[in-house]
C-alpha cells in the first residue's frame, strides 16, 4: 500500500516534470550574445571564425614591415578577398574589419574605393555652382595608394566515408591568404595567412 502511494506520487511528479519540459521547449527564448562569444552550430564559417582570422592578420600586418616600421602612415587600397570556398561568404566583412582594426592602430590609411562613385558625384555637385566657393572641395587633392591589399579565402572539405554508424563527421579547413603589393614596383611586400579547421559531428537519425 505504501509502495503504491509512493509510486503514484512518483508518477505524478514525473508527469509534472515532463509537462514542464514540454512547456519550456515550446516557449520562445532570446538572449543577448557577446560578439566575442564563440557560437558554432556546424562546421561552416561563422562570425567567430572571422574574428579569429582578422585578429591574427591585423597583428601581423601592423607589426611587420612595411607597415610595422613605417612612420608616414602609408596609404592602402583594398581590392577585396576572393572567395574560393564552397560557401556563400561575404569576404567584404573581413576586409572591412581589417581596415577598421588597422586604422585603430594608426599605422596606415585607406583609400575609400567603395565610395568612389559617390565621391565623384559629390565633387561634381560641389563644382556645379550651388555650393559656396569658400567651402567647395578643391579638385585633384585625392591621395594615391602606395599599397594594394588583396587575398583569397579557400576551403577544403572532408567527410567520413560511408560506414555503419549513428553519426557522421566532417571537417572544413579554411585558409585566408593576404598580400600587400607595392603598386609602383609590383612587389609583394608582405604576405601572411591564417588557417583554421572546424569539425562537426551530425547524427544520421533525428525525430
Amino acid at each position: 500500500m505504501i509502495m503504491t502511494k509512493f509510486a503514484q506520487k512518483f508518477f505524478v511528479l514525473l508527469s509534472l516534470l515532463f509537462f514542464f519540459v514540454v512547456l519550456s521547449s515550446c516557449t520562445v527564448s532570446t538572449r543577448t550574445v557577446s560578439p566575442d562569444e564563440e557560437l558554432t552550430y556546424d562546421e561552416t564559417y561563422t562570425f567567430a571564425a572571422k574574428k579569429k582570422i582578422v585578429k591574427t592578420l591585423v597583428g601581423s600586418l601592423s607589426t611587420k614591415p612595411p607597415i610595422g616600421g613605417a612612420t608616414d602612415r602609408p596609404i592602402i587600397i583594398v581590392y577585396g578577398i576572393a572567395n574560393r570556398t564552397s560557401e556563400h561568404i561575404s569576404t567584404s566583412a573581413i576586409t572591412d574589419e581589417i581596415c577598421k582594426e588597422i586604422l585603430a592602430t594608426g599605422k596606415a590609411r585607406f583609400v575609400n574605393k567603395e565610395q568612389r562613385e559617390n565621391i565623384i558625384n559629390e565633387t561634381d555637385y560641389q563644382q556645379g555652382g550651388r555650393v559656396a566657393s569658400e567651402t567647395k572641395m578643391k579638385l585633384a587633392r585625392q591621395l594615391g595608394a602606395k599599397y594594394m591589399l588583396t587575398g583569397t579565402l579557400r576551403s577544403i572539405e572532408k567527410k567520413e566515408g560511408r560506414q555503419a554508424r549513428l553519426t557522421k563527421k566532417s571537417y572544413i579547413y579554411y585558409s585566408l591568404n593576404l598580400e600587400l603589393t607595392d603598386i609602383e614596383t609590383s612587389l609583394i611586400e608582405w604576405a601572411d595567412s591564417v588557417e583554421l579547421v572546424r569539425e562537426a559531428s551530425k547524427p544520421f537519425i533525428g525525430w
Partner: protein
Amino acid sequence: MVDLEILYTGGRPAISWSPKIVYFLLFAFSSFILIGCAGAGLKDARRAFHNGDASRAADILSEVDDSGLSRLEYLMEKGLLLHQAGRYEESVRELRQASDLIREQDIISVGQQAGSLVTNEWVTEYKGEYCERLWVHTYLMMNYMLLGQYEAALVEAKQAQKIYDQFPKALSEEYFTRALIALCYENLNEYNDAYIAYKKLAGTMKNPDIVRPDIDRLAGILGFDDEISNAPQTVYTAAGSSELVLFVSLGNGPVKIPGNIILPPGIRFSFPRYKKQDKRVGRAEVLDSGSRKQAITVETDVVGVAKKSLDERAMEIYVKEAARLAAKEVIMRKIGKDQDDIVKLLLRLVFMIMEEPDTRSWQTLPAKLSLIKLPLKPGIHKIRAQIIGGGSFKDIDFPEIEFFRGQKVFYSVRASGGSVSAHGRKEPEMNSESSKLPD
C-alpha cells in the same frame, strides 16, 4: 470494449464496427486528404507555365503556403519559374532556400519513416531525386552567371561537384552541369581548375571531341603544349574573341506516375516511375547573320538522367515497399480478426487505395538542357537560334548585340509547347545592358 453499431436495413445483416476499425478508417481518410491536398497551387502554376506565362506561374506559387512536407518541390518549381521569367534575383532566393533545405534533410526522421511504414511516402518530407538536388545548383549557377556574379556561381559549382561525388553513377550522364562547372572556373580565370573540369567532362562523355576545343584552348593558356590535340579546330579560337553563351532548355521534362503490381489476395505493390512528356525534343543550332555557325554544344537528356537517378534509388524503394506491405498485412490481420468478410474486404480495399506511390517531382524542368558556346569576333552580331526537329518551335531572333573584345554575353532560352522565351545579359563590367526578347 464497447462496439459502435451501425445497422443496415433492408434485410441485410448488421455489420459490427469496432472503434479500432473506425479509428483506422479515420486515419486512412486523413492520409487520403494529405495526398489530395499535396500539390494545391502547384497544378495551377504548372498550367500557367505550360501556357507560356512563367512569371504568372511564379506569382501563383508565391500565394501558396509552402511550409509543408512538399516544400522542396515548391521551392524548386518556383526557382525555375522565376528563372524562366528572367527574375534571377528572386530565383536565387528560392533556390538557395531549396539548397539549404536539402542540407537540413540529411537527417533521417524516425517519426516520418515510422508513419510512412503504415501509410505511404506522402507522409514524409520530399527530399528530391539525386538529379533534382544537382539541378538546384545548376539553376543557381545559371542565375549567378546571368547576374554577373561569377564568384557566387563558382560557390554553386563546388556544391554541384559535391553532389556528383555523392551520386556518381546516377549522374554519370549529366554533362550540361559539368560543362557549367568548367565555365564557372573559366569566368574567374581559374584556368587550371577549368581544364580539370573539362577533362572530367570529356572522360564521362560518349563523344569527348565535343569539348576538345575547350581543352586545347586551356592547355594552350596553361602551357600544356603536349596535351594539345592535332585535330583541326572546329570553332573560331582567335585570342581576345568574345563569346555568346546560351543556356537552352528544350521541351518539357518527365513527370512521375504510379507504377502498380497487384498480387493476390489484393496486395498492391506500387512505386513511382518517370514518364516522358514530349516525344520529340529536337536540338538547338545557332546562326550568325544567316549563316550557320559551329558552336560547342554540350547536351543533357534530362529525361534519361531523371530515370537513371530514380533507378539508382529503386532498391531502396522496393525494400521499403515490401516492409510497408508486411506491416500493413500484420495490421490488417490484427484489426480484421473476428470481423465479417465484408469488413475484411473493405479493409484490404482501403489499404490498397492508401498504397499510393510518391509521385512528387520537379515538373517544370525541360526535357533537354544544352549549353551552347559560340566564340565570335568582336563586333556587332545578329544571332538566331533554330530548334531543329522539335515540333512547332519558332526560330529565336536575338537583338543585335555588340560584342567587345573578350566579352561574354549570356542568354537563357526556353522553348517548350510552342512558346519561346529568352532573357540575357552582357558581362556587367563591360556593359550592364539587359535585354528581353519578345515572346
